[in-house]
């Protein structure tokens, strides 16, 4: 039962990670510090505002950017986070997701646009994205922890890797879906390539791009919670604690708080999308 040929990526992966650790330590330290600074900043702002002020602020923003329903939903969801005793953890989770999504989008958007223009790049990326989306997310945590050790930075990196595929795919799709005649129109009007991108392609692709952003946010949230296992803090840490101590109540409360954060992020990001559509329809 012992085949001669075995697939053992660890045999060459582990030494290469060791090599990276030994030789590129400075670079990793820099990345680490950059992420920690940005994260700390966002977390600091979110926690500096008192909970009631924060809830009011989000509600007002939701009312003006989306509608009254979104505002009520924001109050209820954030209110739940507060009364369940996980305010700080929720804010930590939201800031983790924010940073991860910002970086995912920054990486995925330009590559996605490039893939829609260069078919060969799309052909190369497609199987890679398939693998990235199918591999269980825990697996990403291993090399991230090997390089960056426990904490928030490996959690964010694993989240970014997990959040890139949906954003990238939907960016490519969004740009592929821009009608050919609109591109022809841009050229026939004598528009420079930048104007075609900004005034024709981007606005036309926007609904699909927002779907991609929405997916990216929700998958990132799922991953950030999972990353509680490697010490990412936030709501994931509470779930992990509930699991290790076999405290059903703690785990359930934390779980519901995650649902609340997910609903909040989902409805607000989707509200932005529908807000656009309804404006175009009236």
């Amino acid at each position, binding site marked *: 039962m012992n085949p001669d040929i075995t697939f053992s990526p660890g045999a060459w992966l582990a030494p290469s990670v060791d090599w990276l650790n030994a030789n590129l330590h400075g670079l990793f330290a820099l990345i680490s510090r950059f992420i920690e600074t940005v994260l700390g900043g966002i977390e600091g702002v979110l926690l500096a505002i008192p909970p009631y002020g924060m809830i009011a602020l989000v509600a007002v923003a939701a009312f003006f950017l989306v509608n009254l329903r979104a505002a009520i939903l924001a109050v209820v969801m954030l209110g739940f986070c507060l009364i369940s005793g996980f305010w700080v953890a929720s804010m930590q989770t939201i800031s983790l997701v924010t940073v991860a999504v910002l970086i995912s989008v920054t990486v995925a958007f330009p590559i996605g646009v490039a893939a829609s223009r260069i078919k060969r790049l799309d052909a190369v990326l497609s199987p890679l994205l398939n693998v990235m989306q199918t591999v269980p997310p825990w697996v990403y945590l291993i090399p991230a922890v090997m390089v960056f050790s426990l904490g928030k930075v490996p959690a964010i990196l694993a989240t970014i890797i997990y959040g890139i595929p949906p954003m990238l795919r939907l960016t490519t799709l969004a740009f592929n879906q821009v*009608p050919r005649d609109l591109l022809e129109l841009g*050229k*026939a009007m004598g528009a420079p390539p930048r104007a075609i991108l900004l005034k*024709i392609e981007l606005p*036309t692709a926007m609904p699909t791009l927002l779907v991609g952003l929405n997916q990216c946010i929700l998958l990132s949230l799922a991953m950030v919670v999972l990353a509680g296992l490697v010490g990412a803090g936030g709501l994931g840490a509470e779930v992990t604690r509930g699991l290790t101590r076999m405290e059903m109540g703690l785990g359930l409360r934390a779980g519901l708080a995650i649902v609340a954060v997910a609903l909040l992020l989902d409805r607000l990001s989707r509200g932005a999308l529908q807000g656009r559509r309804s404006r175009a329809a009236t």
Partner: protein
Amino acid sequence: MNTASEVAEDVLVECQSVWKIFGKNADTAMRAYKERGLSKKQILQDHGCVVGVSNVSLKVKRGEIYCIMGLSGSGKSTLIRMFNRLIDPTSGQILIKGKDLASLDKAALRETRARHIGMVFQSVALLPHRTVLENAAFGLEVRGISKAERHKVAGQALAKVGLSDWAQRYPDELSGGMQQRVGLARAITSDPEVILMDEPFSALDPLIRRQLQDEFRQLTKSLGKSAVFITHDLEEAIRIGDRIAIMKDGVIIQEGTAEDIVLKPADDYVAEFVAGISRLHLVKAHSIMSPAAAHPYLSPGLLPSAGPQADLDALINLMISSGGDALTVAEGGQVLGVITQQDLLRGVQGAPAAEHAAAQPEHAL
């Protein structure tokens, strides 16, 4: 504009033996054609290339509406896209106002497209997230013209197509006909000399289409623009065009005025198209009249008279209201010929003038 430059710029669009061959080996196929004179079928078999447009030469003059009529797959859409270089010709030259399009660099090409060549699409291609006014102003916007200025000009263009009240609406609130008017307004906002119309009215219902055809012709003439108008509908080409080119399999098989094409179709293919066309407004007195000498019993001086450019419709009205059975065709007091009831009926029927003019004297004898 002074007369000298008008003469120099008389021809706005000129095509000189233009070819478009689609496929990977287009250049080899082109060379093979030039050196060995391969047929289209051979080019497809030997080189895997499809000939889209084959050896087309034409000239569109200032102020003229030039219709290119052909069925789908005839190469007309490919041809019109070469006039603003959305498609590069495989061989041959396209001159816009005497300048070779192929010689322009990217910036100069954009400039030419923005200033001299407007385009209206079959699918209208309005930007859904912009208001009608913003859509109409798009051409000026990408040229960096200030908002106040471009909205003013676009507003005037919308007024010309009768859509002033709809400026602040979004495209999906407009009917198909109105959307196409916006497309036309967008094209004239940039004030180009030539407007390329790629089957603009094909998707509209017949009543709206007729209305837009008439409006388009009137607007183009009143603004003094030239247009290249693509259509698959010969009736539309006749209504709109000053000159018509009929395209089949990438080749222009006949070019001429509506009357030329209806009265003297170049081959059976054209004749088949022409068969269903009403001649009432196309056939003119001079092409159905017979010489006065052939009718010695008629006294031309006493008959009601019509000009040589009077159409069949007017001639029928004249003959019925006069109660007689013959008319004279006269210009400047000089009698050019006579039209009998027989001539008139032949004209409606569409028999070539020469044929029955020749038959007439024998008949009279």
